């Protein structure tokens, strides 16, 4: 077959795009702004909320990501909750608890008269059944940190499999509403850890009926995708994967019943697309507001709510690379950085500069550490002393990612880069895609200089920050500091939180003297809501049950 083009006519003014306008103009997307009809409760309606991704699973024990925990917080409850707006433990399904002197056992008094959403009783038997279920997770995919991350990182082992040195020993029923959990070694963070959604109480009956059997992936069982059953204020309705999760009010909820009839959780990946969706009325609220969208939303009359920051962004330094092992060079870098300017350029309003590697709401925080206030002259001096006037360092940062602690990595990189160049350090930028190239480079190898990374805390525990960063020798930091490693191991073993706190404060001082990296800030994660949304209480650890939220 042949066909031949013809001679081209003269170029004329171009306006054929007009045709597109006509087509698109036909479609006016006025949608019904309102909520489902016929609410039976005080308020009624549907609350539509956007997160950044679809959950991986609805069985929170096999999840560790915020998007899986979002519906889990509505469907499930744990023995321990948090005080609204803080990361501190508070009674929930357990009304009180008592830890023994040696820290090896804790007795919980349970709330009575609570029922799971399938009508079965929540009682001591059910509670212990849950502990035993976690401990007896069969070897295989379920025992990887990809799935039972929190159990592995806190309780270390299972009944069977490769990881056997479990911190958990047993759970005994001491009556209808009383259980005692025994541990094999003291664990000061035990009660606080139970506030994690992973350790929610789930209905034994439902799991026996729908749960995974044999070698099947437990996070994708019938139970975990279509029948999650807890005691929370909302009941699972449906999950249209990749599109939305629908939950309805739990009419038999033991606490304050939900005000809205229904909630829908939808995934929208781009922060700007979430903002667009809120602006045109598709959703009532969303999480992880892009810093650049805040003023746009506020100007349009939308509400912005800030979560208390429970994260830390730092500039990591790889001491395996010379001369970064020289403390004077690291100090010079610290003095060269104007944290306020970096925050202005790349983080939401209200973000405070960080003094150390934990945010100020964590127990072991102390304002009494060595600070490195912005002083470029001093930075130049220190570089001269270290004989590193002509220093060139690789500066690593990730692309295609936003994290709560890192809302805009490219801008943060650019701001810090300018400041480093101002004191005469030559910066060689090195960008990598977040997954998995960037993490591979930083944590999996030695070829990196200084880098941006951070952490979002899970619950109020200093080890959850410092232990993760500096608990042992790692590729990320490239230093060997046995004194620090030992101090952290020892602190972790102290049975009581009140004894632990001063020890951690000391360690924080020690870390800031050693200066393995430069803590930059704890960016404030923001939520945005339609003006009609009331009653949403932001929590630093995202423990945000929506039973008090109303949309009218």
């Amino acid at each position, binding site marked *: 077959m*042949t066909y031949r083009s013809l001679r081209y006519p003269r170029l004329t003014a171009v306006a054929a795009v007009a045709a597109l306008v006509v087509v698109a103009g036909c479609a006016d997307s006025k949608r019904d702004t309102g909520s489902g009809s016929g609410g039976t409760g005080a308020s009624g309606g549907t609350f539509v909320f956007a997160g950044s991704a679809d959950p991986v699973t609805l069985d929170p024990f096999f999840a560790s990501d915020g998007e899986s925990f979002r519906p889990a917080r509505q469907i499930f409850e744990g023995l321990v909750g948090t005080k609204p707006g803080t990361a501190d433990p508070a009674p929930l399904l357990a009304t009180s608890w008592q830890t023994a002197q040696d820290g090896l056992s804790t007795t919980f008094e349970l709330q009575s008269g609570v029922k799971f959403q399938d009508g079965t009783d929540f009682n001591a038997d059910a509670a212990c059944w849950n502990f035993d279920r976690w401990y007896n997770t069969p070897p295989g995919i379920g025992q990887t940190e990809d799935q039972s991350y929190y159990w592995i990182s806190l309780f270390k082992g299972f009944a069977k499999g490769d990881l056997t040195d479990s911190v958990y020993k047993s759970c005994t029923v001491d009556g209808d509403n009383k259980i005692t959990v025994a541990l094999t070694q003291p664990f000061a963070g035990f009660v606080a850890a139970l506030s994690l959604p992973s350790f929610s109480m789930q209905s034994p009956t439902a799991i026996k009926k729908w749960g995974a059997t044999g070698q099947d992936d437990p996070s994708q069982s019938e139970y975990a995708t279509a029948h999650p059953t807890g005691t929370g204020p909302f009941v699972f309705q449906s999950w249209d994967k990749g599109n939305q999760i629908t939950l309805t009010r739990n009419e038999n909820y033991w606490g304050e019943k939900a005000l809205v009839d229904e909630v829908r959780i939808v995934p929208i990946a781009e*922060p700007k697309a979430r903002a667009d969706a809120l602006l045109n009325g598709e959703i009532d609220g969303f999480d992880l507001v892009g810093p*650049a969208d805040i003023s746009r939303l506020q100007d349009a009359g939308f509400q912005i709510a800030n979560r208390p920051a429970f994260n830390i962004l730092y500039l990591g330094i790889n001491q395996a690379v010379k001369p970064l092992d020289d403390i004077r060079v690291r100090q010079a870098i610290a003095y060269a950085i104007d944290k306020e300017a970096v925050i202005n350029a790349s983080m939401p309003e209200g973000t405070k500069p960080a003094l150390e590697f934990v945010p100020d709401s964590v127990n072991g925080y102390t304002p009494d550490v060595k600070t490195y206030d912005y002083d470029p002259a001093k930075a130049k001096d220190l570089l001269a002393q270290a004989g590193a006037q002509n220093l060139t360092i690789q500066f690593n940062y990730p692309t295609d990612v936003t994290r709560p602690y890192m809302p805009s990595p490219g801008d943060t990189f650019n701001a810090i880069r300018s400041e480093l160049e101002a004191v005469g350090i030559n910066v060689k*930028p090195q*960008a990598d895609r977040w997954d998995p190239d960037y993490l591979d480079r930083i944590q999996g190898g030695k070829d990196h200089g200084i880098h941006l990374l951070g952490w979002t805390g899970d619950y109020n525990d200093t080890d959850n920050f410092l232990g993760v960063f500096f608990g042992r020798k790692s590729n990320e930091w490239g230093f060997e500091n046995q004194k620090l490693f030992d101090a952290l191991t020892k602190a972790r073993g102290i049975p009581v939180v009140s004894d632990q706190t001063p020890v951690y404060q000391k360690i924080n001082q020690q870390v800031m003297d050693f200066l393995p990296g430069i803590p930059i800030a704890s960016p404030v994660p923001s939520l945005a809501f339609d003006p009609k949304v009331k009653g949403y209480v932001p929590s630093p650890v995202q423990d945000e049950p929506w039973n008090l939220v109303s949309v009218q």
Partner: protein
Amino acid sequence: MTLPLDPVLADLAADPDEAEAGTSLWRAAWRRLRRNPVAIIGALLVLAFVLVAVFAPAIAPYPENSHQWADEVTLTSVPGPRDGNLLGLDRYGSDLFSQLVYGARQSLVVGVVSTALGLLAGALLGLLAGGVGRKTDTAVMRVVDLMLSVPSLLLAVSVVAVLGQNRYSVMIAIAAAQVPIFARLLRGSMLGQSKSDYVLAATSLGLRRRTIVLGHVLPNSLGPTIVQATLNLATAIIEVAALSFLGLGEADPAVAEWGRMLVAAQDRFNEAPQLALWPGFAIAVSALGFTLLGEAMREALDPKGQR
């Protein structure tokens, strides 16, 4: 993303009658080209683009990627046009106009190098397929078909994953996407012409196969190849930007690269749409230049299109 091999060019390359016309064809083509206003507009655009790229340091008022006003750019505002900054600042605090000018340089270098690489590899494969023998032909063309069936974007992503995020991997990735196009063009051309009278004549005169290929067939494929390369340059310029857009380009976020500038502008769109509009127009206009020139050249080479 990749435009397929142009069927007209493929025909042209494979058509012995047209190739036979020899030098007179070239002269006629050149005459037609000079008279075609489309060609002139295209050539002017290309010329302007090349001049801006080559003389970027003289044209741009500030050095490349200076980010010297980084402190004036905040999350909510990017200074627009003002004294000293013709188009205002870019998102990272460099002069937007200077960045655009240096961006031309970046696009030209990556576009030309990648097209040249793609042409070289594609021509070798094509000659191998068309010039050696039946079995080689089948084997080579299977490889080419495989290259076509894997989405070019995935190919590019893997090249970048292996070689790291820098401009060289971008060049190689784009070149890789062009290889099958050139390979098919040259193979078609070889096969088509091997049946032509003058090749038959040359063979009967006892000329060696290699001599025939290099001395007759190759020069006659030159026209369509040049045209295809010109058209591919337009595609390459767009693809550089596309790869940057997907976060696979240069390592420096503030670099003067049009695709990068577009990405960086995305979340500032409401406050500063100019950040996206200028680089977008720059990409479109330079691609337009090469497309017009290529189209006009193709018409000039294809006398049957004349009426």
